[in-house]
């Protein structure tokens, strides 16, 4: 059934995008030394802000921009506390998730059954007719293309540019980086906010393209899965893409089994699979990491930086 396979692949790509955006953002923040466990909260607020602005203006691009801005604003709270005050990154991130869940649930109540704009499919002429790849990769909406373009760009920026070097230096050895003139705090602040922008965009992808509309808690743990994918990726954006696609593929399988009425795997098990397999993927990542014996996490991840000893 090659036709079925192409449809599953198309849904898999669609389903991976929110996790991909959020994971790329978190990856950059972590590279600079800031762990942000608030991804889930930032995505929720981004999803709500995007949808709310969309419902008002019917302009999806403006709406996605609003989602990004909201995610960025949330990240600024985390940056102010962890980079500014040197607060515990784990506690601050968790507070951000609790805050985001509460805030979006509270502000979103009147929007639960509203309708908003949707990012329509924009098939790329020529490419869309490729067998298999055409429907999977080139008959998607703009945000999907953006996510896939962003992945190599971030990879390039982190590994091949001066800014990327400064980001990595801040995350690996903040004190040496500071001594050689890298503005560590500014870099960390900026990277954290960048992470928030992408998490907000990932959230608004959900409410404007993937499952249009607003529902309380609609991210359903995708923010946490994104953080897990960053660990799985060993902080490599290209592998984060692979992780996100794997998540997308699992989600697509759920649709496929539902649509075909297959009882091969019970639906309740299918719904648990993404979370269980994400844990399995973490086990795998740590095992292979141990076998290869290479250091992966940025050495100063989670450590506050200040000049005073």
């Amino acid at each position, binding site marked *: 059934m090659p036709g079925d396979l192409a449809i599953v692949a198309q849904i898999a790509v669609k389903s991976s995008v929110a996790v991909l955006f959020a994971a790329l953002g978190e990856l950059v923040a972590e590279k600079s030394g800031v762990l942000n466990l608030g991804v889930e909260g930032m995505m929720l607020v981004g999803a709500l802000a995007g949808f709310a602005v969309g419902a008002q203006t019917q302009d999806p691009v403006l709406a996605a921009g609003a989602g990004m801005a909201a995610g960025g604003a949330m990240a600024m709270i985390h940056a102010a506390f962890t980079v500014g005050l040197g*607060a*515990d990154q*784990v506690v*601050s991130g*968790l507070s951000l998730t609790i805050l985001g869940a509460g805030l979006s649930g509270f502000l979103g109540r009147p929007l639960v059954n509203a309708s908003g704009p949707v990012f329509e499919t924009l098939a790329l002429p020529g490419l869309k007719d490729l067998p298999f790849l055409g429907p999977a990769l080139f008959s998607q909406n703009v945000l999907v293309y953006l996510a896939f373009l962003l992945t190599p760009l971030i990879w390039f920026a982190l590994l091949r540019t001066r800014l990327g070097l400064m980001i990595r230096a801040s995350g690996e050895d903040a004190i040496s980086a500071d001594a050689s003139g890298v503005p560590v705090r500014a870099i960390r602040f900026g990277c954290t906010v960048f992470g928030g922008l992408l998490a907000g965009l990932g959230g608004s992808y959900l409410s404007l393209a993937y499952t249009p509309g607003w529902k309380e808690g609609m991210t359903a743990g995708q923010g946490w899965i994104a953080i897990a994918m960053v660990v799985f990726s060993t902080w490599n954006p290209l592998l984060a893409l692979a992780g996100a696609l794997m998540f997308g593929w699992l989600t697509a399988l759920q649709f496929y089994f539902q649509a075909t009425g297959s009882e091969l795997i019970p639906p309740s098990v299918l719904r*648990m699979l993404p*979370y*269980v397999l994400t844990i399995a993927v973490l*086990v795998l990542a740590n095992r292979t990491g141990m076998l290869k014996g290479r250091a992966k996490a940025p050495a100063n991840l989670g450590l*506050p930086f200040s000049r005073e000893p």
Partner: protein
Amino acid sequence: MSLGSRGRTAFASGAVLSTSLALFFALAVGAIMFACLGADPLRAYAVMARGALCSGYALGELLVKAAPLILTGLAVALARTMLLWNIGCEGQFVMGATASAGFALYLAPDWPAAALLPATVLVGAAGGALWALIPAGLKNRFRVSEILSSLLLNYVAILYMEHLYYGPWRNPQGFGFPGTATLPQAAWLPTLPGSRAHLGLVLGLGLAAALFVALRRTRWGYEVRVMGLAPKAAAYAGMNLPRQTLTVMALSGALAGLAGMGEVCGVQHLLQDGLAQGYGYQGIIAAFLGRLNPLGVVLAALLLAAVMVGGQGLQVELGLPSSISVILTAALLFGFLAAEGLKGLGPALKTRAAQGGG
């Protein structure tokens, strides 16, 4: 001796300072929010205070909410004392509730109350403990961050519970509503006459006191604290870190499981939608506001419960959504962080963060 008591006074005054700063911060955030919603902040706070404290019914509701918060707060605080992050209390709460309900409904429905109730309580604790052993084992064996694994397991636990009461455990006489049958009365926790406050509160208070003593006065507590303050020294002294990880996570999970048991045997009396309402996450806030001190956790849990019950008053009297209280509790935690940061007094927390990350 003098050092010890000075340390204690410093701790106490530090706690008072950071808690009052946290309160001030949260009140300020709340005031801005009320103003944005077009309500007079002072009036809103007065309504909240009245709604939470000024009637027998309100105090009863406060205790109903405080019971699970004390237990999940203790769960997070105990794990954190040895640098473990148990973010999975929500899942352990659900598994405790599910285990209790399943036991009382299907395994031992005919037992006399004297046997059924204590057994159900223990089964609830066991359910939470077993669920918490998964992240502990994964951490020991594969070095998987317990933050992520315990958190992801929350979703699995909730889906599993839903599967049960939408499917095999659904009440055949329930007119199609999702939910199990009502638990046999012998498995219900006794309540304080005239209120819904149940035995779970006594359990929470007793366990807080027990934990306070155990952490300070027993060899086990000493090991847990040393592992939290200086893991390398602990390993050097021959302490078994992996084994203690299992023990502490199991105990932590048991506390969260008891919270779930209390909710199902003391309040709801069946498994249904709305059982998992975030007590596990609020426990994180209770643990930190209580500065990881078991007795502090009790006070913090009472404060959080007052905010929640007060929030319901807002809905009744001013027509403001009661979910505003969740935002206030998050603001409390941010306020605590700000206080820690501003005092520059957080070195202990800072070094802990170094080992807790990733």
